[in-house]
């Protein structure tokens, strides 16, 4: 046998050279390309993105090429492709294209210019809102998934409650009692440090023991917060908050973001919980990597897939939500044009100027559709369970 062993080919190649090596991205692209609908979605998405960028440059600045705010009352409700009536317009009022590509609205503003501007604004609303929700989601989900078993002690809860009620009292103009409560917190912290230094091994009094008892695990806490948030019907919550706050584009983005992070939190938490148990994390841990490094370098990239998918679809949802709010009069206020408010403004003219309804309506439809298809494609590709079977 020894002889034979020696006889085995020494020049064998450990890895078969014939299978081409691909990076993860290439592999991803190879799979993604097979989904024609998703490719279509991506294509429209890129087109939309370009439009939005081009639109941003063409419609902003001190002297934009296409001024979406330019009011030409005498040119109102002109149908698409109509030529402007040159006699009645000042020179700066003549549309850049020489005609109204998508007609004009009830104030004679160029719908094309407004659509271009709206593309960027709608995109921003979608991205920022989803960005906020994804950030919160990753943060909360990450903490719940990674530090989940850590416990919050009774005194933490009490100190937080005292802090909050103190702050509330101060804002409600009961400054003295509020300040007293606020001072209690550092006092307790000092006491805590002092007693720790001093006592060492001495037994603690009963109340201190109660105070140091574990009240609730971080995971439970965060998931309960998620539960609480999920108890509010989402559109209704958005509507309440938007109706109560002064209308502004930022409020809308923030509100949509703040009310839609629960999904991302759950995804990230689930991924983290399963990743944490996996061998490679244990391996990294034994190598002495810090929590921060483990989370961001090793776990986060692996947990991103479902978040990415839900983010893509979230952008589409945000655009639709904004349109719905616009319908109720709580959308992004002027001077920002969004596709949502162009559409809801236009609906009053559905019999007199149908293009004001149909152009933004169909535009939203196409863009949201492309986002959804793209997201679906991503899901297929990123989902390892489905991938194996291809």
């Amino acid at each position, binding site marked *: 046998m020894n002889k034979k062993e020696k006889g085995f080919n020494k020049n064998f190649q450990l890895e078969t050279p014939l299978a081409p090596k691909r990076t993860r991205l290439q592999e991803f692209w190879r799979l993604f390309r097979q989904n024609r609908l998703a490719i279509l979605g991506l294509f429209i998405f890129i087109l939309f993105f370009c439009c939005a960028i081009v639109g941003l440059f063409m419609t902003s600045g001190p002297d934009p090429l296409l001024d979406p705010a330019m009011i030409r009352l005498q040119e109102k409700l002109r149908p698409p492709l109509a030529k402007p009536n040159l006699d009645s317009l000042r020179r700066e009022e003549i549309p850049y294209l020489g005609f109204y590509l998508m007609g004009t609205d*009830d104030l004679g503003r160029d719908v094309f210019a407004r659509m271009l501007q709206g593309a960027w604004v709608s995109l921003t609303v979608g991205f920022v809102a989803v960005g906020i929700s994804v950030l919160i989601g990753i943060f909360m989900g990450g903490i719940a998934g990674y530090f989940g078993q850590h416990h919050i002690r009774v005194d933490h809860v009490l100190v937080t409650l005292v802090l909050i009620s103190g702050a509330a009292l101060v804002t409600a103009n009961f400054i003295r009692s509020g300040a007293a409560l606020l001072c209690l917190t550092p006092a307790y912290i000092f006491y805590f440090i002092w007693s720790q230094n001093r006592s060492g091994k001495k037994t603690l009094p009963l109340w201190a023991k109660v105070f140091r008892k574990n009240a609730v695990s971080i995971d439970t806490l965060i998931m309960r917060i998620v539960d609480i948030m999920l108890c509010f019907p989402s559109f209704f919550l958005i509507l309440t908050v938007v109706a109560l706050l002064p209308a502004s584009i930022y409020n809308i983005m923030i509100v949509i973001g703040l009310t839609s992070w629960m999904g991302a939190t759950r995804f990230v938490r689930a991924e983290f919980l399963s990743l944490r148990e996996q061998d490679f994390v244990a391996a990294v841990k034994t190598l002495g990597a810090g929590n921060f490094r483990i989370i961001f370098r090793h776990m986060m990239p692996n947990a991103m897939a479902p978040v990415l998918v839900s983010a893509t679809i979230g952008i589409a949802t945000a655009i639709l939500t904004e349109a719905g709010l616009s319908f109720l009069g709580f959308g992004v206020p002027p001077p920002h044009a969004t596709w949502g408010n162009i559409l809801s403004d236009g609906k009053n003219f559905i019999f007199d100027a149908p293009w004001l309804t149909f152009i933004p309506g169909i535009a939203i439809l196409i863009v949201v559709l492309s986002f959804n298809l793209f997201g679906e494609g991503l899901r297929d590709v990123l989902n390892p369970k489905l991938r194996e079977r291809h």
Partner: protein
Amino acid sequence: MTIRRFLIFAPILLIIVLLQSYFWVPTYEEQTKGNPQRLNEYIAGSIGDASLLNPILTADSASSSIENMVFEGLMDRDEQLRFRGRLATSWEVFEEAYFYVNPSADVPGLGKADPQDVANFLKNAKKKKNAITTGLKNSLDYITSISVIPPRNYSVTKELKSPDTGEQKKYITINIAAPARIKLVLNRVEPNFFQNLSYLLGKNYFESFNGKAYLMSDSEMEKGILDKYAGELLPAVEHNPVLLFHLRPGVRFHDGHLFDAYDVKFTYESIMNPKNLSPRIAGYEPVKSVKVMDPLTVKIVYKRLYSPAMETWGMGILPDHLLNQNALKKEAHRLGKDPNTFSMRQSSFNRHPIGCGPFRFQEWKSDQYIILDRFDGYWEGPPNYKKYVFRVIPDQLTQEMEFYAGTIDSYDVQPHQVKRLEKDQRFQSFSGTALGYTYIGYNIRRKPFDDPRVRRALGMAIDMDKIINYVLYGQGEQITGPFVKQTDYYNHNIQPVPYDPQGALTLLSEAGWKPDKQGWLTKDGSKFQFTLITNNGNDLRKAILAIAQDSWKQIGIDVHTDLLEWSVFIQERVNKADFDALILGWQMGIDPDLYQIWHSSQTNPYQLNFVSFKNKEADDLIIKIRQEYDHNRQVRYCRMLHEIIAREQPYTFLYVGKWTAVLDKRIVIKTIDDTGHIGYKKITPTKTGSYSFYFNKWIKLPEAPAFMDEG
């Protein structure tokens, strides 16, 4: 396999069931043309539902439109805007004037006089008829009786008003030893009465009356505190205008109960009852007393001159027998509620109202419809329509489609649709000038709006014609002042602020605003910039916002705009006067009382003069207007006030809108004259543009009639 079959057939079956329902549904044709019942119903559409059907508890327009049908007031205004009796057949307006005899004053030709002497002196003066001025002569002529009220002692308890609103309330008991008083009954209201009388009794007779001298307090209070109450408790002179209503006999509520003067008194008391939280309380606060003289006569005495008084009695009269203390207690018992806290607000009456109007309440389905049936016992004869239906359709567009389909009878046309619908052969359209106007208000507290030149210039920069033509589609008129344009109070001589951007620039440069290199107006190194706000949900205001921003940008003013939700807009910005400029509208009554909006005392937070317009002259006129009962004099004051406001330009008055409503052409006025002959007339709007003035006579015909006067 069963599961698979089920999965395929269930949805198909479902779809079939759902779709086949189409064949059961009556088409619009069947509902309108094929349904003879439909001709006897009038269906109105509304965006919002009514809240409560009780005229004293609500002030929203949806509720009012139903309340007007179910309840009837003492009087209303006719086509010419004159008062017209409804539940009251006639009324008298006169005055009871009082003054305290001033023992310290010298009456010319009488010296210091006791009450009886003064009374006799006045009687003689009246008889002599050779007064010094015509004013005095007239005033004396108006007097119908003179009497002396002997002195009397009484005490009142007052809540102590302390400036820093301390938490504890203090009360003070004041003993009053009131001197003798003379009561004069005038046959009309004369605001200048005492002024004229002072020619007779001496210039200082009224002014020098020292009310303080007659006040005493038990407690060791400072004198100064007592003095504060002197003017209130013992005013030297007092006008007590009186309204005496003679009520229509034999009028019945829908439940058959006879209407009488006690119902009027009850209605007044309900409004004043703090438990009811009536939003109409302000209009009745000047009432001193409501007295039932006999079941068909009610006398309303006012504390002071208050010319809008008449207007307030158009309010629907509530049935005493259904809502008084006893009735409410019974209802509370029935519902198992605490009778002591149970108020009219909780009563089920508010959802099943009973009045004495032309229609009786039938059914109310929240957010769906309210149905009223005609009241056959209506005193003026029952209306032609058998039913009045109020449908709630919250979406404008679907309302429009329902109107086209014939399931709503009227539709309030949006400005941009007027052109299309006016020409439509199926409909008759009415238009008129609205009672409200839209304006841009400037916060005069803030610079640079404190300068009338700036305000004027801002107005000059806006091309009103453009707004009216393009935003309102011609459905509006320019307005120059705060009065209702179709009334006499409106001063038609005042020219609107012209559209003149160059002129605006000149005015602004007079005020110190010069263009900088980029064309922005600056003064002392700071740019002319401010924020213009309005509420959201109003497309016209939104459009004006954009236009104003654009026009001001043209002359170099940097304007930011903001749209706010209504209640935030009102409560956070308007009420707290936290704004630079705003676009808003006022819905006006016909009465020219402008106290709340323009008087300088009304500029505090939560008051309506939020632009802080303060003008001495204007203040005087405003007071005079609300005290003047004489129409012609009132008109004169109003026109003067109009002039001042137009000069000061605290607002840029924009426009008063024109409303257009379309009705099915088959709806006409049907009249039956004494001989029983039936005549049909085309519906024509009244002077105020109310096309539904003769609503009780309306009826829908199967075919549109051809009238001679039709073009």
